[in-house]
């Protein structure tokens, strides 16, 4: 049965500690100034790893039915489309300026 995975307490604590550690890392990297745009990439990268840990092992998606994963991925895809296509407008506006 896909839905009843029981994680060991040790395992859950392991994930928790990994999350604490990554939180510390993401704060720590702001002390060493990483140049634009890599600081954003690093910050988001760490956040993505943390979110993945939560989703896969706290929310048990790793052991869950494939369709639930599909749902989750779809929500991210549509969020990506929403932001991506909106940026096609907001980043490429070319406004005229009056001569007088």
């Amino acid at each position: 049965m896909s839905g009843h995975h029981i994680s060991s307490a040790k395992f859950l604590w392991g994930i928790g500690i990994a999350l604490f550690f990554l939180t510390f890392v993401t704060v720590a990297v702001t002390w060493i100034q990483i140049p634009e745009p890599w600081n954003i990439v690093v910050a988001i990268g760490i956040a993505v790893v943390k979110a993945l840990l939560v989703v896969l092992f706290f929310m048990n998606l790793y052991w869950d039915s494939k369709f639930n994963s599909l749902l989750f991925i779809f929500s991210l895809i549509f969020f990506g489309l929403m932001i991506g296509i909106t940026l096609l407008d907001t980043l490429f506006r070319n406004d005229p300026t009056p001569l007088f």
Partner: protein
Amino acid sequence: MNRLIEYMLPPAKSTLAGETDALFAFINISSFIFIIGITLTMLYFAWRYRRKSDDDVTPVISHNNILEITWSVIPLILVIIVFSWGYSTYMKKISPPSDAYEVRVVGKSWLWEFHYDNGNVSVNELHVPENRPVKLIMSSDDVIHSFYVPDFRVKMDVLPNRYTSVWFEATEQGESTVYCTEYCGTAHSNMLATVHVHSQEDFEDWLETSGGSGEDLPPVERGEMLVQQNACMTCHSTDGSRLTGPTFQGAWGSDVPLENGETVQFDENYVRESILEPNAKVHQGFQPVMPSYAGTLDDRQIDAIIEYIKTLQ
């Protein structure tokens, strides 16, 4: 068919109107063929295969991949043609020639102001030369408006925080209507203007002489002209009827009740203030929606308007 399409469209009075109309006709004709074809097929089937008895046995025709591909690919080709055609004309519509004559357009609720390079300002009438590209740089003072001239097949929203532009090259002398097509409140449907297309010389004459000065007229007549030119009558009637704003008739000398309960005398100073800073003292029961005319009207013009209002008893 051609006559129907001609009937459907307003007269084409700009250089790019023809191209737009051609695509309009193309889509209309091909849609027409499709709609008639499919409808007739449908009706024919409905008649030819009508139920004869409740025990009718129908053949098992569950799918046909060749058909599916055919009726996917043919429309696909057609829409790609339409898309490319539409896009190429659109690119022309948004790329003004570099030598275009520039006019500043300001949309306010609910009038259009046109500023020319010599400092002239005209309200609700745009004067342009014939056969010369004209580029309008537009902005709004309040909400979103949209500048639309059907005869030229151009339209562009007028935004409060940015400049937008349209351009056209009028091919015929005469007048065309400008509409506001982005809903902007009470008098949205009265936010009209007229484009006057002159010959090059007439346009230059107009630019030098008029600009709507009328300085040589007696003050009352000049005031009346200004009230018309500046679209005051969109909101203020001269016959006592209630529009978006209070009427001018009988206003002079009266006590104007304000929203806060106070009253103020309708005198020279009140008129002057109301023109330059319209929302400082708003008549009770009316919305604070009037745009400011500071920079549009000078003191002499305001004097003339005051003289005119005095006559409306």
